[in-house]
């Protein structure tokens, strides 16, 4: 049940991001929408790794080594998401760098001003 709710939250963020990316004309807002899509994807991936009544896969007093296979959530999506967050930050940094460059060339951040690469 709870993983469905979290999954729906993640998908909601992705939808918000897609909508924002398509409606807004300001490059910075498009970058923000792109980050929203990324965050939503991370939440969805983590939600898929949830095991019913599971807990974090960290062995300590609360979760003994023998209990772990039965009560731990899937560690692989979590490990993937740690990777994905860092890559998401890297992509955002590159996008912002290009936004600065685009602003320098046209002195505006509106995507409508950049007609050369239009099809």
């Amino acid at each position, binding site marked *: 049940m709870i993983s469905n709710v979290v*999954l729906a939250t993640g998908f909601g963020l992705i939808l918000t991001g897609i909508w924002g990316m398509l409606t807004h004309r300001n490059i910075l807002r498009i970058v923000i929408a792109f980050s929203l899509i990324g965050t939503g994807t991370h939440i969805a991936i983590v939600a898929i790794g949830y095991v019913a009544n599971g807990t974090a896969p960290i062995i300590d007093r609360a979760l003994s080594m023998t209990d772990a296979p039965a009560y731990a959530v899937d560690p*692989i999506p979590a490990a993937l998401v740690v990777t994905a967050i860092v890559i998401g930050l890297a992509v955002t940094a*590159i996008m912002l760098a290009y936004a600065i460059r685009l602003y320098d060339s046209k002195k505006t951040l509106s995507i409508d001003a950049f007609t050369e690469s239009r099809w």
Partner: protein
Amino acid sequence: MIRRAGITVVVALFGLVFASVAFHHVERQSLPPLSLSYVKLVPQELGAPNVITGILLTYRAFDTLGEVAVLFMVAAGVGLVVGAGGRLGAGSHVEAREQARQASEIVRTGAQILAPLIAIFAAYIIMNGHLSAGGGFQGGAVVASCVMLLVLANPWQRLNPDFLGSAESLAGVLFVLIGVAGAILAGGFLDNRVLPLGAFGAFFSAGAIPVLSVLLGVKVGCELSVIIDGFRV
């Protein structure tokens, strides 16, 4: 108007797909075989209580190495795209400096008090990566947030690029050397069993994982600091 309608249709179609996935998703009752073996093997064979760190820094440490390479490329790419000199002509740097406001006293004092605390917290997160939630990536991001705060407080205090560059390269070289040592002395590239595993759950345990964690933290912290520095005029 037509554009709006088109966007609404696209978003609605995506929403339909997502809704059907979210509603028909059946919560797992047990772990899939691969995850099950990771949950069993990381504590038993690697001696790391945190399964995720065990995966990130041993079983899939090669991915982690590739990922810090990506971060390095981004740091270089940001420097290339927004790099000093290309963006503003010579001389306008000085002009921009004179125009810029100084940070307020609240920010400067706050940074002085908070920066050491944030740095200690980052060290804690990095060093506890094998025991509880944390690790090199997370701690490195906290280091970068400390750098960000200092940049906000002293906007014209340049970061030392030589120090950042050499610390980052040194951490990278040591990371790869430990990986090669793993290939020679233990089971394979970046195997953590080159160092003694120690007592399960102790601070100095889990073989090379804490060392790799520290190196990763230094590398990520330096790379993110270089990225932050790249965005300044």
